[in-house]
């Protein structure tokens, strides 16, 4: 139970890192996520069933996500479409693409298939309970991705991406093609989202075309929850905050499911809860700002 919250928090944390890159670093509200999450799941599941090596399948899922993000960025850059609409376009198209990838099916079960998770739990069988093996595995995966991102955002390219969300003119003035930078940033973000989708499919034991509905809201809520914990301008702290936020979000959702039962909440109500959570976060954030002003005035 408790380890389930952490495992889900870590798996979704990879997706939230992607959402964090677009929404917070690039200032590019990207809704492709709702499509690239099941895209990752679909690629992973169909390649596992097709008998491919699981790591090749995972890498393919990552590349699929990158491609989806690049499509959104190109639509936005070339056709001068607002980024929100570009994301919705890609997301909508991905619905059909995902069903195609799964062989014209909306759902692909992974029962009795070799996944990364079954491989890993079989190695530690008898030593560590499988639930904890999975928890340890995802802890290392999430941390590895987090540290890789920290490193990336300290490179010249990463720094430039950081400046892009704040000040496009400055980045142009440095002789950088901002269209290319946006494609790299949004691509990377959706690559991470697809990896998260690929792990979700293995953890839940199926890929489903509806897996991504509302995922971007979930990601944004997690980012916002994380932002209440502490403030910093160091990228390592920011990415850490994102993962913590994701775990707390999953915790809140678990409580919603567990205790919500008593007040008549069903799993179908959880999306409403997620939306309300964001609204509450925004209200608290606004309240904070108002207090700040009062202090300055006094």
């Amino acid at each position, binding site marked *: 139970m408790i380890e389930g919250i952490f495992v889900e928090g870590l798996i979704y944390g990879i997706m939230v890192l992607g959402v964090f890159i677009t929404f917070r670093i690039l200032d590019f509200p990207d809704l492709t996520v709702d499509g690239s999450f099941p895209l990752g799941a679909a690629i992973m599941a169909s390649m596992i069933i097709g008998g491919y090596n699981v790591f090749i399948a995972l890498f393919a899922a990552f590349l699929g996500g990158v491609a989806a993000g690049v499509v959104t960025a190109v639509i936005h850059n070339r056709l001068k479409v607002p980024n929100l609409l570009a994301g919705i376009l890609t997301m909508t198209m991905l619905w059909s693409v995902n069903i195609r990838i799964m062989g014209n099916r909306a759902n692909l079960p992974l029962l009795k298939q070799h996944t990364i998770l079954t491989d890993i739990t079989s190695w530690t069988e008898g030593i560590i309970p499988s639930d904890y093996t999975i928890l340890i595995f995802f802890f290392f995966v999430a941390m590895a991705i987090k540290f890789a991102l920290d490193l990336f955002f300290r490179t010249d390219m990463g720094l430039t991406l950081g400046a892009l969300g704040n000040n496009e003119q400055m980045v142009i003035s440095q002789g*950088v093609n901002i269209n290319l930078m946006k494609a790299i940033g949004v691509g990377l973000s959706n690559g991470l989202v697809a990896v998260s989708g690929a792990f979700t499919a293995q953890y839940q034991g199926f890929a489903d075309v509806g897996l991504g509905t509302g995922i971007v809201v979930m990601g944004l809520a997690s980012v916002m929850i994380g932002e209440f914990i502490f403030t910093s301008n160091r990228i390592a702290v920011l990415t850490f905050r994102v993962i913590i936020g994701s775990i707390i979000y999953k915790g809140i959702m678990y409580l919603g499911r567990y205790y919500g039962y008593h007040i008549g909440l069903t799993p179908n109500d959880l999306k409403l809860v997620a939306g309300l959570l964001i609204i509450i976060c925004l209200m608290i954030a606004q309240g904070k700002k108002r207090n700040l002003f009062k202090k300055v005035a006094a």
Partner: protein
Amino acid sequence: MIRLENITKVFNQGTVNENTALRGISLRVKEGDFITIVGSNGAGKTTLFNTIAGSFQPTTGDIFFNEDNVTKMPEFRRAKYIGRIFQDPLLGTASNMSLEDNMMICYKKGFKGLKISLNSRMREKFRDELKILEMGLETRMEHNLQLFSGGQRQALTLLMTVLSHPDLILLDEHTAALDPKNAALILELTDRFILEKKLTAMMITHNMSHAIKYGNRILMMHKGEIILDISGEEKKNLTVEGLVKKFYDVKHEELTNDELLMSHE
């Protein structure tokens, strides 16, 4: 070095809002020139800068950098040759990043790769460079720029622009948004840097006495045209009254722009 040939810029062409911002501008900027540009609002000064920097393309005419035609070159490619400083001090730097990160981004122009260049040697170098400004910024390398004043940020933008040694620096009223003390400071720094590093620069100003005091050449723009182009000895002996009279001689109308006349000291 930089040559504009018969540049015209028409906004909203073919509509009721049609507006000709530049009318057949031809200009030759020589290496080492420090050109000041004055003119009332709507004279086309900023449009001229936008055209040179490549923010948009001229309606007609050609732009040459060192004999290469760059009229169609996108802004980010041209940025390798041009350093531009805007009136808004926030436009030159990223608020959400630290001083050292900003300096790293501005250190080299062009595509940024996957190299981590910001190391202790770089920091040492940046610290030495910041000491030139004498603002104590070298002790605040890790602070986010939103904590800095407009004057400090503009000084920093100026320093970073100068250090990248562009072929041409465009200064678009870069002291207008600052308080008088900081404005004077930035202007002195600008003059010092341009002379010391032998840079080529164009500076838009609303202040006629600044335009006369600084630089080796002065352009006056009016309704999309360059109506006065004074350099050499004549520029050195110029006074505000002399400039107003020259304007009258050319246009046979009084220079009525209050802002332009009020702002000389």
